[in-house]
């Protein structure tokens, strides 16, 4: 039975998943060619590894490891502060290059994309593998970035493909080969299957992705909820997750978290950091015309342990002024005296669209309208003069102290260069190559 094909037809659909290899670190190597072939790590400002180049990974450096530990296992590692402006420029370009090949590109994350290639063989006069290779080659040539791609019948299968051979791999999984790839894949490695579901499946005697795919529909319907039924279909080569081409215009939640150095035990500073995260999250929510019904806040101590609390709102809002009192109450629950904190975070959840908002009889609508006007002005001023030109007093202490002091306060090279005509906030929209010629 295990030799049975999942699909007799090789390419009823062709969905490509592209995953950039060690994206942040590769961007750094692309703009600093002298770093090619060397172990490069980003995340200096956070004190932990955000991304490690393949050279660093080969030396045992993993994501999330503390930088002090990195220096022990890989003393010659080049550790850089994250330069999100440059990474974003590369990301946008990567998606633009993909759109040269197909109009159906889903920007899944900063370094991942899905592309629907179905039906494009004729216009490219070649097989899907050739199109995939051409994409990979173009991104390598024009951006100097290495990417891995997988092509198969559904998103879940394509994702298995892109992981299969990394870095710089191309993995084709046509219908008749699907079972060969699923055979050796533990079921918990399938995209969308979490540890709990995997544990449950293991109890049912399912350990590999193939065993799961071969389970009959009745079992799947009876014991698993809809998302897993969908994964099951996708594993069987029946594409149910479409490639979503529209750029993101909605969010289910918005989270903002920032680490600061040195860690602080000062209540007003820690609260100010939290307040600033709230301001930032609300700015983003307002940009997408969303309002939150729940707010989750968390504090992380110097020893990396943390605690959080969820606050429910009586009315959806994206105006910090209305939330500070609640924020302070939540903060008091979490904050412990004489404890060093290194990070705070805010998550706006239960987001609803502003225009569909309903007020209750007891809401003071004139006040709300006034607030809306004030924030509209604040956002306009920010657009013109930069974020936090006007800020709430609660977050003021963050202005008195740099986000990171000491070595961690190093800023990315690009931010240290100010070309004539550029200002602190606005820079040319081109990545800079840093070579001495």
């Amino acid at each position, binding site marked *: 039975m295990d030799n049975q094909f999942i699909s007799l037809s090789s390419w009823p659909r062709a969905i490509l998943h592209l995953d950039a290899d060690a994206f942040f670190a590769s961007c750094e190597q692309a703009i600093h060619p002298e770093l090619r072939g060397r172990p490069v790590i980003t995340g200096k400002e956070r004190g932990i590894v955000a991304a490690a180049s393949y050279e660093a990974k080969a030396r045992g450096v993993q994501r999330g490891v503390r930088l002090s530990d990195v220096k022990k296992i890989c003393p010659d590692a080049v550790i850089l502060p994250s330069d999100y402006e440059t990474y974003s420029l590369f990301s946008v370009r990567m998606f633009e*290059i993909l759109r040269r090949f197909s109009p159906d590109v889903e920007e899944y994350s900063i370094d991942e994309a899905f592309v629907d290639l179905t039906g494009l063989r004729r216009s490219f006069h070649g097989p899907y593998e050739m199109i995939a290779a051409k994409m990979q080659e173009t991104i390598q040539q*024009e951006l*100097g970035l290495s990417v891995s791609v997988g092509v198969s019948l559904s998103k879940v299968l394509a994702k298995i493909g892109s992981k299969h051979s990394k870095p710089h791999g191309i993995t084709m999984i046509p219908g008749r080969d699907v079972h060969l790839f699923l055979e050796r894949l533990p079921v918990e490695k399938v995209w969308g299957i979490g540890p709990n579901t995997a544990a449950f499946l293991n109890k049912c005697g399912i350990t590999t992705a193939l065993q799961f795919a071969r389970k009959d529909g009745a079992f799947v319907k009876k014991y698993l909820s809809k998302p897993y039924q969908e994964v099951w279909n996708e594993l069987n080569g029946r594409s149910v997750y479409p490639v979503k081409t529209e750029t993101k215009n909605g969010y289910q939640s918005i989270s903002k978290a920032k680490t600061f150095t040195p860690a602080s035990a000062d209540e007003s500073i820690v609260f100010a950091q939290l307040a600033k995260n709230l301001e930032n999250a609300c700015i983003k929510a307002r940009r997408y015309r969303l309002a939150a019904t729940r707010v989750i806040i968390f504090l992380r101590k110097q020893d990396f342990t943390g605690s959080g609390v969820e606050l429910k709102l009586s009315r959806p809002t994206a105006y910090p002024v209305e939330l500070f009192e609640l924020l302070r109450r939540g903060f008091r629950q979490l904050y412990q005296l004489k404890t060093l904190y290194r990070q705070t975070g805010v998550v706006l959840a239960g987001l609803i669209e502003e225009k569909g908002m309903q007020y209750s009889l007891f809401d003071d609508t004139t006040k709300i309208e006034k607030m809306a006007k004030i924030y509209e002005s604040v956002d306009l001023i920010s657009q013109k003069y930069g974020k936090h030109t006007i800020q709430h007093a609660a977050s003021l202490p963050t202005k008195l102290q740099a986000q990171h002091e000491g070595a961690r306060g190093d800023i990315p090279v690009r931010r240290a260069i100010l070309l004539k005509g550029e200002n602190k906030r606005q820079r040319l929209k081109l990545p800079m*190559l840093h070579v001495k*010629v």
Partner: protein
Amino acid sequence: MRTNTVFLKVVYSPEDLAVLVGPGGVIRDASITMPQSYRVLGLVEAGFPSPAEEELRDTLSLDEFLIQNPDACFLLKVSGDSMTGAGILPGDLVIVDRGQTGKSGDIVIAEVDGEWTMKYLKKSGDSVYLVPANPSYKPVKPKHELKIAGVVTAVVRKYK
């Protein structure tokens, strides 16, 4: 809605009934009774006409003028003086197109035997040289390896 294309002619009948005539002269709205004769009064555009927009359609922004392939272009700040003869001075910004591999005569950014440089690329027969535009430097002939990172397509010097 505002478009720039003229998609319909509006024809007025003697009774001042507006009738829409498509490109092939087909009457689109059949519910309007056919009058005896038509008098064409002129063309009406959908939306307000904008003469400026019409005239400026075939112009380039400075961005488009300097950058042909926006996905593959990078900025590079020049520090050396080996290309002063080509008008590239220390402190200038050059735009480097990584999508191009370089033809003879192009100014390229290249890695020669482990050293980065900006020079003219000269190819003659099988041999490849990198030629500076400054008499105090000598042409370079790669001993082991030559990697071309991109082609210089423009130089930007801002005075104020």
